[in-house]
């Protein structure tokens, strides 16, 4: 396995704001990866930098071992679908599907047609007259049918309903299995997409705060609920990332519990639940900022 994306100290400043701040990541080839973070955290800017659409203020990026900026050889193997994609005036869905194949070597026209049916997109209507969900569906169709070796999907299903989203997940997985490639997916619906993601990058205020395999992350945090005294006793000396107390009942979220620890906690009369990816990320990117940690207190 080799790195398909590598950045070092990658930074993009807009005025005084660092939209992307000293990002150094390395992404292995193959797999579906999540780029998660709050609105304005820098997800889109990072993807624009990786696809040569935005110019870095500092740092370096290599994609397929080369600089992506103005590099046709790299860009032809790359597809970047973003929610805010602009279309020429009066462009209809059919014009998009007519022109997109000219720019992607692996384009599969039959698959594109199947996707059009699956998402039920009206091709003979102007793109700007489509609903948000229908516009998103056009992006999804181009993103999947391009079969690019490196595909970025930035909030690809904004405005799609639950049924269409599920269809998207199914089609993505099915096509990914038949034609393995590298997909970077950004989304707000973390738990919904969690099962798809092999690796998760979390960006907060332009900085990468989590870069880990999804399984590792999911096992990394546990919430314990029980009587305050019991909970505090168990939590002492451990890394607490969140705590709430209500009456005599306390709930704490701890990092790095082993299976043995969990059994011990259950034996001590505490209720243990694994923390969902979403909760964990909310915690790490703002939700838990107000909470004090056990380490701070100690």
């Amino acid at each position: 396995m080799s790195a398909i994306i590598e950045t070092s100290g990658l930074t993009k400043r807009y005025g005084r704001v660092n939209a992307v701040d000293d990002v150094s990541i390395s992404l292995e080839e193959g797999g579906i990866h999540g780029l998660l973070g709050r609105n304005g955290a820098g997800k889109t800017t990072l993807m624009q930098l990786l696809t040569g659409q935005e110019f870095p203020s500092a740092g370096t990026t290599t994609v397929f071992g080369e600089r992506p900026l103005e590099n046709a050889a790299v860009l032809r193997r790359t597809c970047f679908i973003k929610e805010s994609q602009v279309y020429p005036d009066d462009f209809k869905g059919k014009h998009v599907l007519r022109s997109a194949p000219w720019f992607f070597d692996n384009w599969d026209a039959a698959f594109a047609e199947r996707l059009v049916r699956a998402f039920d997109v009206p091709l003979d209507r102007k793109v700007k007259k489509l609903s948000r969900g229908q516009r998103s569906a056009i992006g999804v169709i181009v993103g999947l049918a391009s079969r690019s070796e490196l595909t970025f999907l930035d909030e690809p299903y904004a405005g799609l309903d639950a049924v269409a989203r599920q269809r998207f997940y199914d089609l993505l997985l099915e096509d990914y299995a038949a034609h393995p490639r590298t997909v970077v997916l950004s989304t707000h619906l973390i738990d919904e997409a969690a099962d798809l993601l092999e690796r998760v990058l979390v960006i907060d205020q332009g900085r990468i705060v989590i870069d880990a395999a999804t399984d590792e992350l999911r096992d990394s945090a546990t919430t314990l609920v029980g009587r305050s005294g019991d909970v505090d006793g168990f939590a002492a000396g451990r890394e607490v990332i969140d705590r709430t107390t209500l009456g005599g009942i306390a709930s704490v979220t701890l990092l790095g519990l082993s299976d043995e620890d969990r059994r011990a906690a259950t034996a001590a009369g505490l209720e243990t639940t694994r923390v969902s990816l979403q909760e964990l990320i909310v915690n790490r990117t703002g939700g838990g900022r107000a909470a004090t940690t056990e380490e701070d207190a100690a």
Partner: protein
Amino acid sequence: MTATDTVTTRPATASAARRMLNVARLHVANPVPTLVLPVFITLVIFGLNAAIWALVVNIAGGADNLDSNAFSYNGGITWIIVFMMVVAVQAMNLTFSYAIGLSVTRRDYYLGTCLYFLALAVGHSAWLTGMAAIERSTDGWGVGGYFFAPFGMWQESLAIIALGYVTTMLLSFSIGAAVATMWVRWRAYGLYAFFLGLAVVLVGAGWAITAADAWPSVGDFLVSTPLEQLFLWTLPLTALCGVVGFLLLRRATPRG
């Protein structure tokens, strides 16, 4: 699964010429705005002019009762020259954003778009010159009306008329491209700065010409220079605007 494995049979990256040609095709993915619409509107404008000529002839009781040059000076066709500027503005703004979204490099996009502009200028000039030829062979549609040879150019050769169309359309494209890329790069402030700068340059030039008492020579130049040379004199300006557009777009980020 399909029979071919796309991962192992990925075709080599298309050559630079192929990539530019694809960009040019992108502009006709929807042929209405740049091909169908200009022809249609031109024919409508011409139809309205012809209707007015017929009306006047009718009221005058025949073309013989009018000055022989009554309908030989018409500027209606200039709309299409200006429209080419609109085409260029749209191309550098919306279509640029779309092309970048399809993983096209800025360089390929700009050069492919220039190629399309060239083809479009030649194509529109060809049919307009063809109409001018018909106009001439029918003595101005039977009423001495000259629409496709504008501004009294009905006595000039068809080659000069064609040259006039091609060069002014190219100038229109390149000005549109240069101004639109300023917008793409710096938004409204870029345009404020540009038009203020342009006003300063124009007033300055007027001042300098007046101070040097050179207005007569400017007039002489315009009157004595043959038409084809005047048309050819647009080419340096066209090239300059084209280069400015390229340099600006090379560092532009698509909106959205």
